[in-house]
């Protein structure tokens, strides 16, 4: 995956349901500033909501980092969800549709991948979880 240029970043600490709201509102504001159409704002905000929710559910706390990126003259937004929680022992399994360890909550990662253009996850048992997702302006 290309790195893309990472500009100034916004960090939102995640520890409660109120932070989930803050993160998605910040993300929406940044994407709006970047000129994404309304339909994309909804997708980006929804993806951030699910990523932040996963942090609260599985790791209790972590952070969402929002940043503008650029590649080949295209602008985009990068959403990074980072925690030092228990991690995901089997990432492949977690990426299968319908898989969730907490029952009906957090349909989660495969859904987030569908909402965004690029998706990358690094995790392992005891290693925490980092999810990087990008959306490009068309």
């Amino acid at each position, binding site marked *: 995956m290309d790195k893309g240029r990472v500009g100034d970043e916004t960090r939102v600490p995640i520890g409660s*349901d109120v932070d989930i*709201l803050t993160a*998605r509102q910040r993300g929406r504001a940044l994407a709006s500033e970047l000129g994404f159409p309304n339909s994309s*704002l909804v*997708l980006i*905000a929804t993806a951030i909501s699910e990523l932040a929710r996963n942090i609260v559910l599985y790791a209790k706390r972590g952070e969402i980092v929002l940043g503008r990126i650029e590649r080949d003259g295209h602008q985009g937004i990068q959403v990074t969800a980072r925690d030092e929680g228990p991690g995901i022992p089997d990432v492949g399994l977690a990426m299968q549709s319908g898989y969730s360890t907490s029952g009906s909550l957090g349909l989660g990662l495969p*859904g987030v991948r569908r909402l965004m253009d690029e998706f990358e996850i690094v995790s392992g048992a005891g290693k925490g979880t980092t999810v990087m997702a990008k959306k490009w302006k068309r």
Partner: protein
Amino acid sequence: MEVPILKQGPYLIASVQSALTDADLLQLRDGLVEKVGRFRSRGVIVDVTALDVMDSFASRMLRDIAHMIRLRGAETVIVGFQPEVAFAMVQLGLTLEGVATALDLEEGLAFLDQKIKGNERGQGPRG
């Protein structure tokens, strides 16, 4: 922000005005389930026109509301899903199966009127 719940004849109408935290959603659920008994309401409308994000938790809460209200003997209809929100929900696999939806408040009221008349007919002769 707490969602106001208005009594309108035999119905309760909850109009979501702004983004909701999980705590707000739980409060909405509990408020509706309680008020349906207090006002002996026959139907509930939850208007989500103002919502720009419907994630897995919010979606589960709406489903829980509809199912709990049904167990209390009333009907629920969710109205006002915006096109972009509907698209994002489908991408996430949040289909709200078993929950009645309508385009807007007007359609929601028409749905409940019809549903409740239907239920009353099914209960035998009246008047």
